[in-house]
């Protein structure tokens, strides 16, 4: 047990936990005001349901030995997850750190189905998804599963978190279907300052996500911290240039999106690449996500908040580029294409493909099964009124004139 490592991981865990409320602001600002609370609750509710399920079953399925595909139940109900060391930190703390990853990954999916999915169906979906999709994939890469054996590099979750959530989001957007008014009506962000606030807090929390993935207060954590600072910075520069080329104006929503894309892209690479490589990686990563966002908007795919472009495409780009820029001299694990090991790119691509197939198929099956029991969509009329009032009985921006305590109103 190392006390410095423990201190850093306590902070890192809190930082990653903050990313889910940050995501709530990022997503909440992008929707119309009548759906602001519902959208933010889709992130917040993950802090409840997914945390509890992680403690009950998810952690055990992901991080116990089991077989190549999934862990076993030896740590279910946190049996045997005590104060003893796991690596150099307490086992319970390791469990909590990993829980925060599962929470945000599940919440990321919500961006694809906001403004029309029934809340109860959504909560059921992400709860089951965390156990059936996230836990096994986390096991493949970090729990000693087959992708780890293959030598796939994923420092903090480019494939496990971002490609995984991106694919689930794509499937969910298709199965749930587009919003009634899409694409005929202007479905505009109601609060861009929220979007900027969210992206800023995500960046802050991401230092815990990436630098914390070193699982120690050491030089690799320092490297991951710096790459997490530089890659999104380069993405922000590249994105602004792309915006300028396209419309002559660098947009605020674009800037916020760029930061997220850069963070996503550097996630798998954070502790494997040099700071200079991070700048190049971040700049390159802007291009595919930017293009996919432009193209997506012209299709009938209502991935409302572009989870596929930001997380799916950004995560895949980052995972592939990890296979290009990785340097064994930094962390002693593996070299990438530029350092004489072209095979790493192939390994990275197979990991991405495996996650796409598994997450795609299982997310589809889960949604179809849930759809048999609970309608996936809110009632058409409720969608028109807004999901804040109809799903939660509250409004984000209350015009309370005329409101009276219920007891004073005739039945």
């Amino acid at each position, binding site marked *: 047990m190392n006390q410095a490592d423990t201190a850093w991981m306590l902070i890192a865990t809190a930082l990653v936990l903050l990313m889910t409320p940050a995501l709530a602001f990022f997503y909440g600002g992008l929707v119309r005001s009548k759906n602001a609370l519902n959208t933010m609750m889709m992130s917040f509710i993950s802090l409840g349901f997914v945390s509890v399920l992680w403690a009950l079953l998810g952690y055990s399925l992901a991080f116990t030995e089991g077989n190549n595909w999934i862990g076993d139940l030896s740590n279910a109900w946190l049996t045997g997850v005590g104060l003893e060391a796991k690596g150099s930190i307490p086992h319970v703390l390791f469990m909590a750190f990993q829980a925060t990853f599962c929470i945000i990954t599940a919440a990321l999916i919500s961006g694809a189905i906001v403004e029309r999915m029934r809340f109860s169906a959504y909560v059921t979906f992400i709860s089951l998804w965390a156990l059936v999709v996230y836990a096994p994939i986390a096991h493949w890469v970090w729990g000693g599963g087959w992708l780890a054996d293959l030598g796939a590099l994923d420092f903090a979750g480019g494939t496990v978190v971002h490609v995984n959530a991106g694919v689930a989001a794509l499937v969910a957007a298709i199965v749930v279907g587009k919003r009634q008014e899409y694409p005929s009506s202007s479905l505009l962000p109601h609060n861009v300052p929220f979007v900027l606030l969210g992206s800023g807090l995500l960046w802050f929390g991401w230092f815990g996500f990436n630098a914390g993935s070193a699982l120690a207060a050491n030089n690799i954590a320092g490297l991951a911290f710096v790459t997490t600072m530089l890659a999104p910075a380069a993405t922000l520069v590249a994105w602004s240039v792309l915006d300028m080329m396209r419309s002559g104006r660098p947009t605020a929503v674009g800037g916020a999106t760029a930061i997220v894309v850069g963070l996503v892209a550097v996630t798998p690479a954070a502790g494997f690449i040099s700071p200079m490589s991070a700048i190049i990686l971040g700049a390159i990563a802007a291009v595919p996500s930017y293009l996919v966002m432009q193209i997506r908007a012209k299709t009938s795919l209502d991935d409302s908040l572009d989870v596929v472009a930001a997380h799916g495409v950004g995560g895949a780009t980052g995972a592939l580029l990890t296979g290009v820029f990785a340097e064994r001299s930094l962390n002693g694990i593996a070299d990438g294409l530029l350092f004489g090991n072209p095979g790493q790119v192939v390994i990275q691509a197979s990991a991405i493909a495996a996650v796409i197939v598994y997450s795609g198929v299982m997310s589809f099956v889960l949604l179809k099964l849930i759809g048999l029991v609970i309608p996936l969509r809110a009632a058409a*009329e409720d969608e*028109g009124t807004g999901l804040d*009032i109809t799903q939660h*009985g*509250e409004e984000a921006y209350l015009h309370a*004139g*005329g*409101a009276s*305590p*219920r007891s004073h109103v005739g039945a």
Partner: protein
Amino acid sequence: MKLIKSIVRPNKVDDVKDALAKLNISGMTVTEVRGHGKQKGHTAIYRGKEYNVSLLPKMEIEIVVPDSIADEAIKAIVQAARTGEIGDGRVFVCPVLESYRIRTGEKES
């Protein structure tokens, strides 16, 4: 000239705009408003206390048109904004005495 004031469901504004555009009526003022007619409103719950929120969000569309096309415009609005449920809104029509274009100062008839 007539001032036609329509209070419609927020998600019907685009439909009304399109219907009016078909009649070549392009100028309009749209305002977010709150109110209620026969609708009872909805129940809100904050910290365990239930409230009846009776003022619901609506959009108000104001247009000024020559008398000759007023009836046609009203019909178009009613058709575009109707769902058949309570809460579809109202259309009010008032006479307009005079109208000026600010840019030129000229009086319109």
